[in-house]
């Protein structure tokens, strides 16, 4: 199954990079979102895949029984998702404000600070 997920990650990165290189303000952000998804899935996969069991300790046990998924990558991905959300939300609103201010969503038109 890892190979399938590796392909999914690759696909997300390919799509993300393609969108990242577009001239459109929004597409660029879509690209970043796709890349973010890819990165999250990648970290998740790095804990190796253990189907089924969540890392929960049964009520009357002191530690988890049998095979369980690696909780650390989950925690990392969770944090990364939330942080990513904050940054993406900010970037989206920024893009909207930029559009309102510059009246264009074409990045090639947005070069005033460097010329």
């Amino acid at each position, binding site marked *: 199954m890892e190979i399938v997920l590796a392909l999914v990650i690759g696909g997300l990165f390919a*799509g993300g990079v393609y969108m990242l290189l577009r001239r459109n303000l*929004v597409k660029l952000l879509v690209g970043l979102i796709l890349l973010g998804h890819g990165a999250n899935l990648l970290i998740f996969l790095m804990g190796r895949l253990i189907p089924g069991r969540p890392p*929960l300790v049964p009520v009357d046990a002191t530690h988890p029984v049998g095979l369980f998924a690696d909780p650390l990558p989950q925690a990392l991905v969770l944090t990364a998702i939330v942080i990513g959300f904050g940054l993406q939300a900010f970037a989206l609103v920024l893009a909207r404000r930029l559009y309102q201010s510059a009246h264009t969503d074409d990045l090639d038109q947005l070069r005033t600070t460097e010329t």
Partner: protein
Amino acid sequence: MTPAIASEQQPANGKSWLHRLNPGWFVALLPLSLTLFFAGLICRVAAGEVITGSYPWVPSLGVNLSFYIDGLSLVFALLISGIGTLVIIYAGGYLAGHPQLGRFYIYLLLFMTAMLGLVLSGNIIALFVFWELTSLSSYLLIGFNHSQPKARASALQALLITGGGGLALLAGLVLLGQVGGSWELSTLLTQDIVIQNHPLYLPIVLLFLLGAFTKSAQFPFHIWLPNAMAAPTPVSAYLHSATMVKAGIFLLARFNPILGNTPIWQCSLTATGAVTMLLGAYLAWQQTDLKRILAYSTISALGTLVLLLGVGTAIAVKAAVVFLIVHSLYKGALFMAAGAIDHETGTRDINQLRGLRRVMPITFVAVTLAALSMAGALPLFVGYIGKKLIYEAALTAPSAAWLLTGSVLLTNTFTVVVAGLVAVRPFWGQLKPTPKPAHEAPLSLWLGPLLLAGLGLLLVGLLEFVPSSLLTPFLATSATAIADELVRVKLAAWSGVNAIFWLSLATLLAGIGLYTGRNGLRRLLSPANALTAIGPERIYERTLAGLQIVATGQTRLLQHGYLPLYLLTIVLTTAGLIGYTLLTRYGLNIGTHWSGVRMHEITVAVVILLATIAAVVSKSRLATIAALGMIGYGLSLLFVFYGAPDLAMTQLAVETLTVIILALTLYHLPRFSRLSSTAGRTRDALVALTVGGLVSVLVLTVLTVPMQSRLTPFFAENSVTLAKGRNIVNVILVDFRALDTLGEITVLAVAAIGIYALLKQQKQNEQNE
């Protein structure tokens, strides 16, 4: 800083004589006491003693404030402080009432400190520190009249040329120190054989020469010196004739025992010196501006000094020491006098000056004395001794003696012309009206020139009639310090009718002849002078302009403003570095991980991939948002399949929020339009697929490495017992790695503050408009 100057501006009626003195007299007390101090050391040094001492400065880098006072340093120190005293008095008169006089003195004293530090340093890094400070103070002083663009440009030129040389010197010094094993001069002086046999010897010498030649205005770096005449005349007299430009000479002399006596050293010095000497002298007599005449003649003198050091025989070194002193005396005097003339008449153009002899008698005397010394015309003057020694050195040079003698002869002929231009032309004949009605300069302006010129006479007297005085042994120790062998000095102005006498006579006659025929000759030579149009000056300008063009071009090329291209560059850099490193350092090594593929998982994976494609190709914003949502939800399903319910819930919630925000923000943005060309799209698609492939490969490569998490067993073990929670993921978030979560919610908080500011600010901006 200004009260003393303010009083200077007012008419001094009814004030005591003390108040009428310019502030220079008081400032001069400082260098005067230094001069006396150094003079007091002559005894010890003349006896052959080397006075040393050392204080740690930056011991971690091996840099100490050491001093090393031998004959060579003391000669320089005396010149610096002595001429400095006179120049400071002079400047007080020259810049009387100037509102920035205080600043001028600060710069001048900074320079003096730096110059003294340079010649007295016993640590080569400390020496470099002072070396750079002289460049800096020279920059500030050349640009003193900074409202004139010319002054600014000249200051910059001097700084760039000497600063560039300085950097080369730094590299040279560091290499020298590393080869010689110390930054201390006293140690290095014992290491000459080690250093000269080291493979780095050649680069060291070249770097040193760059430093010395730029500083001492050797061809082709000489161009900054005439331009530096934009500085107030006290500066020209002090820095650009008597002292700073001699720093390069000092450097060559100081390191001659360590680096010298090799063919490369001698050849480069002799050749460069000869060219500079001739060129300077040739250009000098063709000028009409007094200061420029003197500046070119200074270049010539510096060339002579380098030449003499290059010849390197005992007699040449002796000649160098004497000529160094002689030149400083007469050139300092002439510069100051030129400034006095400028100050009192309003012009420095020799075509406008005539008959000043009557109105400026004292200045006239001073200039005449100095010019006679310069021309080396009469055995009465120390200049004659200098000239004599130079001829002697040239005649006895180990190689190319006749060539050198010829060059010296030609140079000296030109020098005689220059002397005439300075001393005869402005003073004799009918008085011509000048921009300012000419009258004699005040005491402060003629004292310096007269004293320096007079000293030329006095020295001869000392040498001639008091042979056992301190002076000769002192000069001998100086020469010995340079030559690294015992040099005997026995100087006499008159040594009978010999080859040198005839040479001197020939020089004088040729000079007088050339002086009378100079206008004709100048016309004759004017076509040749067109060649100077492609000289170093032009190269400097071109380089500067070229630099500007390259800089602008490069910046436009790199910082072009197209964000997608920036991102492309970064993506390609990333992919290139990682792909190259992976392939060359590790190789392709991907395992196959087909174990346990289940249908529903494959389905979700395919859905995610399809949604990705949809998000990429879709032309509608809503469809893109929907596709993004699909991907997010697909991911949360995957998380569910692989035992991550918390993650799935979070992903689900965040995805929903993102979709809402996307919908809200994109509402007013225009629909997607096709902006890039097909070629561009193809290129990007190729890049994207490469990156995607690379990431997949990387992931699969990493998965071949067996991984044993070192952390997970601990979490599993202690989650309940110590952290009292059964949901290990949550325990990690709020306990094991709570600091991450604290950071995370802070990020969220800042993001919210930012979004709020973005949106509300807009409202305020609109209200303001």
